[in-house]
């Protein structure tokens, strides 16, 4: 029996199918202008690839910014916040996880769950883009590297300069200033990643940390941000062993199974 989760975020959209709590198939795509189109491209294409029809999926939960529209269009039967879904997704992967740091395209969240994976507490960044994937995207563009390169190149840093601001706009100006002074891209990438981790740590301190800790969302793929966070937390984070970007959709599918599963 299959259950579905669809997560349409600000930058990417994911669809996950689970069977008996484990991932049967998934798809991740860059978002389209309309959440329904994104859901169609992720979920619809996933079903097509697997030779399945919508009625083969017993229950679907949508999450992310497009969650309501997807439910309104009856692609999903229910919508749940991405905060609960990331919590449940991380917990379902590793049952000892109690704290989840989810950094997506336009927000960062620290989520605490109990021993059933249910939400206990959470904190989310304010409306500014500092400390989110968008910040890294802008910085990568300024450095002339891809988002995927931003983590690995910072490993070659020797003398990263101090970033005096965490505001995306001012930080861009500061990075340009350092580039003009001849500071290497490796050093600047390291500064950017550290600055990102510091911003997220401000959120972490507001709810506190309980082990185990897992990082989810697209920024979890950035090895340097992850390492900086581990240093600040003094905790080694557990590995999701799956693409961290699909954990929200996976959590939604697990919740769908809990809701309607046998």
């Amino acid at each position, binding site marked *: 029996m299959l259950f579905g989760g669809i997560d349409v975020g600000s930058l990417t959209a994911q669809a996950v199918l689970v069977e008996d709590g484990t991932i049967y198939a998934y798809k991740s795509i860059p978002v389209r202008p309309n959440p329904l189109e994104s859901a169609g491209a992720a979920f619809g294409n996933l079903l097509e690839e697997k030779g399945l029809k919508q009625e083969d999926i017993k229950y679907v939960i949508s999450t992310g*910014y497009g969650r309501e529209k997807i439910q309104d269009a009856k692609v999903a039967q229910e919508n*749940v*916040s991405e*905060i*609960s879904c990331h919590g449940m997704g991380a917990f379902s992967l590793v049952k000892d996880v109690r704290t989840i740091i989810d950094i997506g395209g336009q*927000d960062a969240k620290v989520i605490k769950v109990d021993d059933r994976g249910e*939400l206990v507490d959470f904190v*989310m960044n304010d*409306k500014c883009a500092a400390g989110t994937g968008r910040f890294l995207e802008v910085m990568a563009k300024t450095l002339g590297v891809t988002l995927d390169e931003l983590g690995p190149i910072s490993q070659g840093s020797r003398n990263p300069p101090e970033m005096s601001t965490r505001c995306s706009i001012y930080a861009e100006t500061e990075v340009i200033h350092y580039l003009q002074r001849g500071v290497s891209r490796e050093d600047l990438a390291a500064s950017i990643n550290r600055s990102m981790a510091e911003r997220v740590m401000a959120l972490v301190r507001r709810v506190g940390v309980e082990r185990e800790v897992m990082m989810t969302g697209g920024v979890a793929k950035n090895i340097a941000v992850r390492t900086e966070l581990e240093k600040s937390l003094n905790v080694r984070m557990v590995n999701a062993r799956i693409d961290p970007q699909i954990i929200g959709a996976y959590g939604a599918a697990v919740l769908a199974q809990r809701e309607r599963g046998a």
Partner: protein
Amino acid sequence: MGPRGKAMEEVIRQSEMIENDYVKKWKSEGKKVLGYTCVMTPAEVIEAAGLLPYRIRALGNPHTEMADAHLSRFNCSFCRSCLQLGLDGTYEFLDGLIESNGCDHLRGMFENWQYVKEFDFFHYLKVPHIMTRDAMEYFEGEMELYRKAIGEYFEVEITDRELLRVMEEYSLIRDKLRVLYEIREGENPGMTGAEALAVILLGSAVPAGVFLDLLDRVIEERRDTDISGYRARLILCGAATDEVDFIREIESVGGLVVTDALCYGSRAFWTVERGGEEDPLKALAHMYLENLLCPRMFDDYYSRRDYVLAAVSRANVDGAILVHNKFCDVHGVDNVQLRMDLEKNDIPVLQLEKEYGAKADLGRIKTRVQAFLEKIG
């Protein structure tokens, strides 16, 4: 969530306009309107002068371009939104302003508005920040100046008799608003939080007689209504929130706002009536200053806390949302202490800091509210 009757339809429609039809009618009869903002402004004096007291609002207006030339981006966005509407002509129907010292952002709004528009009538009502015998004496003097300023400029004698008549009318309005809250806070709520805010908002933008009639009709319509389909009962507390749409968004994800401690909500009318004063102006001074539930008052946090806890218990809420606009110092500080006290009383709390009227932030706010509702079950 619930069926709307004709009276509620009328309230919603009128409350969505800054210059509602009743104001237009009032002006067409050649009568004057005075604008004020703070809950501590005794509107009875204005009404007793034959003028319409109008509580200035921004109704979620997100534009501040003109206001930003006078107030900085670090000023509260509610004040900037109101100033914008003052400067762009939306408030052309006002014949004067009553400034008060609610907070420095608000004073900046009034004084820049006056600087640009140069109203012929502009009065500054100074309200003490503490409640002591000396402060009360001072405020009684301020109330005399307030009555004198309005009377002299508009060439009308504000008699004690007329003041007493208006005070009785306002007292009746407060009684009826409490009935409205009984309907809202009961086991089977008869209206949504967005509807309740619309009612109260309209109340400070129309003549008292008009509002009394509307209130009677709304109460009649909603007495036996039963709102269903919500997952939690909430109290909304905090800063100057006149955004009906903001409450509508909270309610769209299943959190029914069954009561509030908002400046544009219950705090605007829940003041305890004071009897026994022979001088109506003195009675008003006592009534307003002794019951001013606003974090701009020093050394009075416990009254505000007790007020919120009483509402929590009365309305049997499952959780509390504390909201304040960015750069609102007084509510920002108060909300921290209030959160701790509510949590001590086992009431889950969601604290929101937001930019006034910013639609871009709405998705994120809805996510937080939905997650909060999922957390409290």
